């Protein structure tokens, strides 16, 4: 079948994703889901509130 969408899965957790959360590409060879990217970059670190918590 032509024009079929390539199935992507996260390189870390194997979850099916539509596009790579890092580069937004649908044919990324190192596709990663948002949750794993957040973990990989430590972006899940709790940030202090403006008002000091």
């Amino acid at each position, binding site marked *: 079948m032509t024009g079929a969408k390539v199935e992507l899965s996260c390189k870390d957790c194997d979850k099916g994703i539509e596009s790579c959360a*890092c*580069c937004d590409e649908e044919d990324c060879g190192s596709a990663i889901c948002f949750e794993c990217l957040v973990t990989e970059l*430590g972006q899940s670190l709790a940030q202090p509130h403006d008002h000091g918590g």
Partner: protein
Amino acid sequence: MGLATEGTNASRPRAGDVCRKDVPTCRLGERMGEVRDGVRAAGWDACVVTNDERVVFGLLRSAELAGADASATAEQAMRPGPSTYRPFVGIEEMAEVMLEHNLANCPITTSDGRLVGLLVKEDAARVALELHEREHHHEEDQP
């Protein structure tokens, strides 16, 4: 505003330190002909599409800048909702993902989406390498 960064990693460079704050920006309704001319005149090949509060809506990398019709708006030409990264992410981690995914640049934003700057792959890789070499030499100097 958050608390001051503390601890043993406080001096390690982060995405927010290395990103370029002088990246050109444009608004959704601006025409690509003028955007392209302005960006190139400033010596850039990328432009971030924001609103007046610097909230990021899209990104124009070299392909979008080169390929867009001059009469098209930035909104029509941009990559909408690009992946953004927080300023506190370590430069080594950023360099690693940018090299792995061949990202020429990526927007660094606050958690509410406001632009801090654009991190360029070559800058991230250079600073990460300098950091690595500095730490390697430091280890060799230890008795």
